């Protein structure tokens, strides 16, 4: 597989503005080889609930320049249908960034495992509700 595990992230912001304030945090993750952005799409919903998609390449100059270093690829795996479905619950006068990122660290880790003649047999994200349940049960048992 050419990719490490890919995650889908939707980040919602109030108002119809992307200001790039999350870029430093993203840059840090990228510099440390933690993630790599492979697709990104911006969606805004106006006061009437009308949804507009905006491509990375169509951002205003300042914003494009700001995002440019953190966007490794715009591979187009996210479709218009995805954008529509993922932003269906967005309230009017808000915006969302939809992003696909590769967990680069996981690929490195898997490579290390393979080099040690090991094999990753399971790598699953545990739903939060399951962890909450287990922690509650643990707390109850040790109370």
């Amino acid at each position, binding site marked *: 597989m050419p990719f490490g595990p890919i*995650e*889908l*992230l*939707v980040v919602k912001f109030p108002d119809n503005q992307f200001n790039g304030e999350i870029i430093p945090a993203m840059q840090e993750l990228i510099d440390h080889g933690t993630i790599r952005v492979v*697709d990104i*799409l911006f969606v805004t919903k106006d006061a009437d609930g009308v949804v507009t998609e905006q*491509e*990375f*390449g*169509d951002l205003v100059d300042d914003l*494009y*320049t700001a995002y*440019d270093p953190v*966007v490794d690829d*715009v*591979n*187009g*795996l*996210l*479709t*218009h*249908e*995805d954008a529509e*479905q*993922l932003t*269906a*619950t967005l309230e009017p006068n808000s915006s969302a960034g939809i992003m*696909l990122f590769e967990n680069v660290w996981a690929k490195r880790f898997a490579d290390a495992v393979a080099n040690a003649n090991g094999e990753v047999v399971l790598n*699953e*994200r*545990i*739903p*939060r*509700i*399951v962890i909450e*349940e*287990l922690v509650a049960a643990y707390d109850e048992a040790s109370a």
Partner: protein
Amino acid sequence: MIRRRPAARSGPSLVGTMARTAVIAGTATAVSGNVAARGALRAQAQQQQAAAQQAAINTQADVEQMRQQIDSLQAQQTQTAAAPPAAPAGGADLIAQLQQLGELRSAGILNDAEFEAAKARILAG
């Protein structure tokens, strides 16, 4: 500056593919209500890990939440069926949906009446 733009974004829906395979149900759960309903339901129906399932639906509140997710799932299925570019493998989808419903009933998430109502809705397409 040369601006980078993606291809047409006209491939198969990522979210739809996720919901079908449920491989990344965990990721889907974190993303949006609708997607979460599809992902979580499918994952639970398919995994058949009774213990984990029991943990997830243990309390009355959780059961209620599951019911709401089922409603949302059904609404979405109805919507999908009504959408103009209908899924090519309609028959296979239908059977998968019915099987999934059966599993939900076996797991005690749906009672008989809810099962029948949902089945009727799926068959009515």
